């Protein structure tokens, strides 16, 4: 990546964050936003420091995490359609979270943990199901298994929401639609603790992801421990997805669209691709969140609706360009 592109990227990130901080339910001039960031006390400062800043930071980290999960899964399965949402991870995580809330064990730390168990169970089930085609993992069967397991988890979630009388479950479907309306520094702290290890592991193993993207056999011959690596990718993406779902509900298409968009411009090694995808994914979700809170003020649209509305047409364009 050239220096010019690097400067452009930094400017784009700064622009997105500034836009995220300066828009919202309250119209605040830029000077107030800037003062509010550094000086506590006024009610404007409270809005900027305690509501907008964690919201933008959380949207950025969740977007980045979902995007690198998508990129890692795509490298492992060697299929550009792989994504936490399409592979059933998000629904598995949602089911775990809903079960935790229904059994009255829902706290800020326990919901992500339960979501992790759900995502991991979904991955295991998807993996086991896709082995019906033989020892070698067929990417198409894997994707199909992901869709089926996702639908199954969705059905169980619906059943629990209808049958459970735990207070938090009733409106869980609204929370699952996704949104950052209740972002706080506490939520940011919880998310960071859960996400830093898997994100770090993926960055650390970026060279191995290049090998894995070549195929199992070439990767093995080039010295990669394929099975161990694959388990690591499953665990890391499951944990990243679980932390995201527990924080802001099911937000789809980030892991699909962002790596795709980056790869259409240039095809770097994963050592460059992963950080790039993380930053672009972060910006994408920050912008989607800006739209979600400004489109129908004072109401909020679920951010998952925005990512799908932007993501699906963009994906169609990318798909055509890739095939042509």
């Amino acid at each position: 990546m050239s220096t010019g592109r690097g400067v452009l990227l930094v400017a784009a990130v700064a622009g997105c964050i500034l836009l995220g901080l300066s828009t919202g339910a309250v119209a605040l001039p830029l000077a107030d936003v800037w003062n509010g960031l550094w000086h506590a006390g006024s009610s404007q400062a409270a809005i900027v420091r305690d509501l907008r800043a964690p919201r933008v930071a959380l949207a950025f980290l969740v977007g980045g995490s979902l995007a690198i999960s998508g990129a890692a899964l795509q490298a492992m399965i060697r299929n550009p359609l792989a994504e936490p949402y399409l592979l059933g991870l998000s629904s598995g995580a949602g089911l775990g979270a809903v079960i935790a809330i229904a059994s009255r064990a829902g706290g800020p730390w326990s919901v992500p943990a339960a979501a992790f168990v759900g995502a991991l169970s979904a991955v295991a089930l998807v993996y086991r199901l896709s082995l019906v085609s033989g020892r070698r993992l067929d990417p198409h069967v894997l994707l199909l298994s992901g869709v089926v397991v996702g639908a199954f988890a969705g059905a169980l979630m619906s059943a629990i929401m209808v049958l459970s009388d735990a207070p938090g479950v009733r409106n869980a479907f609204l929370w699952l639609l996704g949104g950052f309306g209740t972002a706080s520094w506490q939520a940011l702290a919880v998310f960071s603790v859960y996400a830093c290890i898997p994100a770090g592991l993926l960055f650390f193993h970026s060279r191995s992801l290049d090998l894995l993207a070549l195929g199992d056999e070439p990767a093995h011959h080039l010295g990669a421990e394929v099975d161990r690596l694959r388990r690591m990718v499953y665990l890391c993406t499951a944990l990243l997805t679980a932390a995201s779902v527990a924080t802001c509900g099911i937000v789809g298409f980030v892991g699909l669209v962002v790596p795709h968009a980056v790869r259409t411009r240039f095809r770097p090694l994963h050592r460059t691709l992963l950080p790039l995808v993380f930053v672009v994914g972060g910006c994408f979700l920050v912008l989607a969140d800006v739209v979600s809170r400004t489109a129908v003020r004072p109401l909020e649209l679920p951010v998952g609706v925005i990512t799908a509305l932007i993501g699906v047409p963009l994906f169609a364009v990318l798909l055509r360009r890739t095939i042509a």
Partner: protein
Amino acid sequence: MGGLISRLPVALHRGGRLSRWWVFALLTGCRPTAAPAARLSVIDDAGDTVRLSAPARRVVSLIPAVTELLFAIGADSTVVGRTAYCDYPPAAHAVPNLGDGIKPSIETILARKPELVVLYNSGQNAAVAGRLAELGIPALRINTDVLSDVPRVARILGRVTGHLPDADSLAAVFDTALRNATAATSSGTRPKVLLLVWEQPPMTIGRGSFLNELVERAGGQNVFADITTSSGVVSVEAVAARNPDLIFTTSEGPSAFAGRPEWQVVPAVRSHSFLRVSGSEFNRPSPRAPAAIRELADKIRAVRR
């Protein structure tokens, strides 16, 4: 989403239970007109003419507000089916429970051999009404969203069950009681009230709901009265920007939000200025609305003192 948001109040009126069914798209249905020799005809809230040969003696009521009204106008002996959420008056519990009021089971309705079915006027119920009409059972689709629906629907129910004089007197008593309850609160400053019906995500009540009217008549002003639908999802920032003096919650609404860090930006949360109410009179527009307004007005005065 518009469809979802507009359907939420229905769920709230049914006792605060929301399920994902409301996410699904609206169904449209065409209804053949039938029933010859009709002596009694009313136009329902869907715009259809519903014809009956005589006042209905067996009514299935699939709206809690309608069940309550049927009992209130003395037509209780005609009610042969109700929803799971019809909990007032207590005598309504003796009526067979037919389950859900939105997309109900037609088979279960038929088993009660009704001469009239009253349905909530929503997109999903259009197909149900059409199916019932095909089976020769008149279906009346009714809106019960605002306080003025109480006397209006009472009179419709009075006509179709042959209890019009009782319905007329109930309507007259209701209008007077509503005026009196409102007049008693019409002086002084009006505290800004946030009607918070859910916390994660924060969901509030707009001017399309009777709860907005209850609060306004009790002497408060809804900080989100600019939301034209009955309810909507907002952000904590939007709440902080409106800076409510009081926060109205129901027993089925949010409970733990006051301790959450992001809510501390809202001064009314920090000072624990809450209006907590329970009781089904806050779930649906009903003849109990004047009493509900008095209760709210007392609570507002007590908190403000």
